[in-house]
């Protein structure tokens, strides 16, 4: 690059080439992601019911959003999403940290372990959901069999007709699938920590627990933050897992916001209202992402090179 500057116009030539390289991909993204997003916003300002085409698509300003705010099923869906997000992400971070610490030490066969833990992350979420639905099946499920064997229950528990019980397989399935991913992110963070810091701490007389509190945790903060936000954003959009495990049931007691939006759109064919829900999901995700970029930006500038 430094060599280029000797030639007049080399930089503008490079810029032109760069644009030629960037435009096809960027254009695709703008056309297929950004343009539809604008369309969602526009759609959300209309009543558009595909079951009643004779009603047309009257422009109704913010009427759909007013309905969202007074819609009990919407607030329920937000609550379910929050329960799922907090429950699964907390468990994943705690277990992921324990795993990452263990993986960072036990290095015989670590490659094998790392490969093994990647598999649940890589398989289709639908498959993970089905495996857990089968394990928690009232009759055929091994969960009930084990719980009865060790004497916690005396007859099979029907997990999926119980509005609190149905959360157990949902959260367990997510923890099973995503904890390894969290652990790998944290492991990468752990491996960046300078081992001489531990030597110094040991010389100062710090035991393993104080080393963890005063060396590991502070230096791992950026990695924990990345994992936290990635998982939060992901969990907030949960769809596949709940669709397959409970379908949002019993009733709508495990229905997250993405599933409610899907149902409003493709079950009830209320495109205006469903679009308003979609916009709400986008706004919340965007706010969370902004939080992420801000928090991470601060961390990155503070982190030593």
């Amino acid at each position, binding site marked *: 690059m430094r060599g280029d500057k000797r030639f007049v116009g080399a930089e503008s030539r490079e*810029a032109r080439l*760069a644009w030629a390289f960037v435009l096809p991909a960027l254009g695709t993204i703008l056309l297929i*992601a950004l343009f539809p997003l604008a369309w969602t916003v526009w759609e959300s300002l209309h009543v558009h019911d595909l079951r009643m085409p004779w009603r047309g698509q009257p422009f109704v300003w913010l009427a759909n959003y007013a309905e969202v705010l007074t819609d009990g099923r919407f607030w329920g869906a937000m609550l379910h999403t929050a329960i799922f997000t907090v429950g699964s992400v907390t468990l994943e971070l705690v277990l992921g940290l324990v795993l990452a610490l263990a993986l960072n030490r036990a290095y015989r066969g670590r490659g094998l372990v790392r490969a093994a833990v990647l598999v649940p992350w890589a398989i289709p979420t639908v498959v993970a959901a089905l495996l857990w639905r089968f394990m928690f099946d009232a009759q055929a499920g091994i969960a009930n069999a084990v719980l009865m064997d060790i004497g916690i229950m005396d007859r099979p528990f029907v997990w999926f007709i119980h509005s609190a019980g149905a959360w157990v397989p949902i959260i367990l399935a997510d923890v099973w699938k995503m904890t390894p991913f969290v652990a790998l992110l944290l492991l990468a963070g752990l491996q960046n920590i300078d081992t001489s810091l531990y030597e110094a701490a040991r010389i100062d007389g710090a035991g393993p627990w104080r080393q963890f509190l005063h060396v590991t945790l502070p230096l791992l903060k950026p*990695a924990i933050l990345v994992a936290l936000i990635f998982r939060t954003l992901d969990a907030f959009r949960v769809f596949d897992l709940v669709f397959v495990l409970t379908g949002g049931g019993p009733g709508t007691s495990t229905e997250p916001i993405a599933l409610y939006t899907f149902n409003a759109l*493709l079950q009830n064919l209320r495109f205006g209202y469903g*679009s308003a829900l979609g916009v709400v999901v986008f706004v919340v995700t965007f706010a969370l992402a902004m939080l992420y970029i801000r928090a991470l930006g601060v961390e990155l500038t503070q982190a030593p090179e």
Partner: protein
Amino acid sequence: MRRLTGWGPVLVVGLLVVATAFPFYWAIVSSLTPEARLFEAPSLFPSQLVFDHYRALFDQRDFWIPIRNSLIVAGNTTAFCVLVGSLCAYALARLQFRWKRPILAFILAVTMFPQISIVSPLYLLLRELRLINTYPGLVLPYLTFAMPLTVWLLVSFFRQLPAELEEAAMADGASRLRAFWEIILPLSLPGLATTAILTLVYCWNEFLFALSFTLGPERQTVPVAIALFRGQYQVPWGQILAAAVVATAPIALLVLLFQRKIVQGLTAGAVKG
């Protein structure tokens, strides 16, 4: 810190491996168990293994159709993304131009896009274009998440290559384009392969768009087909689990073969942000 101290870590890792593997073991064993025995008291070690469910899966349910659909959709999406995305990623990683940082930030932002937020316009658009229940009707929506993912992963791969190589080539009189084509591309084949694998895996696993934009079994992808399996009287668990094993096996194989590269790609994309 790197030395093995005590049995704690070993125990944790052992538990992890068991907890990870058990659902797979259980699915495989159950998919080989006769339907009638599935609903008896489960036993960890099966006494009788049969291939009935796998046979029924392909003979009665034509499970090769969703497999074909998934391969076509995922393959086309990945090919397009790697082709177009590698140019974009190269420019973002190596060339100097204004707007570079905003574009990078924008692409990262799009990777976090909630898919559900664009289901309604995409549905209306595909309906208008008569692309509901077609292959292009899935490839187009898949580009929304696959393209930013591909570009993002490739940018971090291209950045890892030493800049001296192309500078040397250009000092010898090669153009940027030739330097990219003859020096950078061959060197980044491992990165391109890893990116292609990850994109394939994401497309293979995708559920929401495939569920929204297909109507019947003839264009359903593997996850949709499995999720919508219905039996006549009860849940056909044997066949569902056989299908789950078939859908998972190629992914598991790819991940085990390329795990080192995949971990590098993932953590580079995420941690270096």
